[in-house]
């Protein structure tokens, strides 16, 4: 059973307790949401990198040097 830890700031006492079924379900739903967001971010980053590489290659074909491309 997944555990959670809580510190009560008014007492300083920290306790570990089992998560409830509702909390576990909520956590699993959050994990799926976050994973979907993460996949979306990674896909966007990969597309940006591919577009940049493609653009750089086209600029090089036009005669720009690596330094000129990097300085854009």
């Amino acid at each position, binding site marked *: 059973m997944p555990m959670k*830890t809580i510190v009560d*700031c008014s007492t*300083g006492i920290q306790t570990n307790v089992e998560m409830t079924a509702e909390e576990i379900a909520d956590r699993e739903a*959050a994990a799926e949401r976050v994973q979907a967001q993460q996949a979306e971010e*990674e896909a966007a*980053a990969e597309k*940006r990198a591919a577009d940049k590489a493609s653009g750089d290659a086209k600029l090089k074909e036009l005669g720009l040097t690596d330094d000129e491309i990097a300085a854009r």
Partner: protein
Amino acid sequence: MTITKLATLTASGVSSASFSGISGSYDDLKILGSAHTDYSTGAANTTPYQVMTIRFNSDSSSVYFVSYGYATGTTATGVTDGWTSYTYSQEISVPLAPNAYSSQDDFSAIEMYIPAYSGSRQKKCRVQGSFMTPYASAGGPNPLSIMGNGGWDNTSAITSITFAANYGDFVAGTSFTLYGISNS
């Protein structure tokens, strides 16, 4: 300005870590933390970190937003940077929990600042952090850093704050310390 340490959380073998019973007698809150998780399967095969979620008062409704700029990589391996933004989320999520594919010694450095946490306006926070991963397939070693902000569209005073890894548990060495800031 006076800084008062309110509590320290140590998290090991737990999925989430919370501060509860936060007094409303300060002006602002500050949190310094460091985290690492044990997750090593599934989604972690493609990334050397887990996303850490942050909630206030255990509120799971779609009233959070987060925006952060990030940069990862080195001059030698190439730098990837960008901007991420989510609105109407059910939590503030930031990539600040290195997992089992990162170095065991690598714990993220996390800093949050929450102004006017007990006031009557909607709450916001600054959140920033970084970690280093040796993830070879990502061209490592790679630093990853973020700087951004989060928000909670709720006017209630913040009395609890929860940090959770989206998969796996926090490992020994993970800790969060909460400070109360008095401006006078």
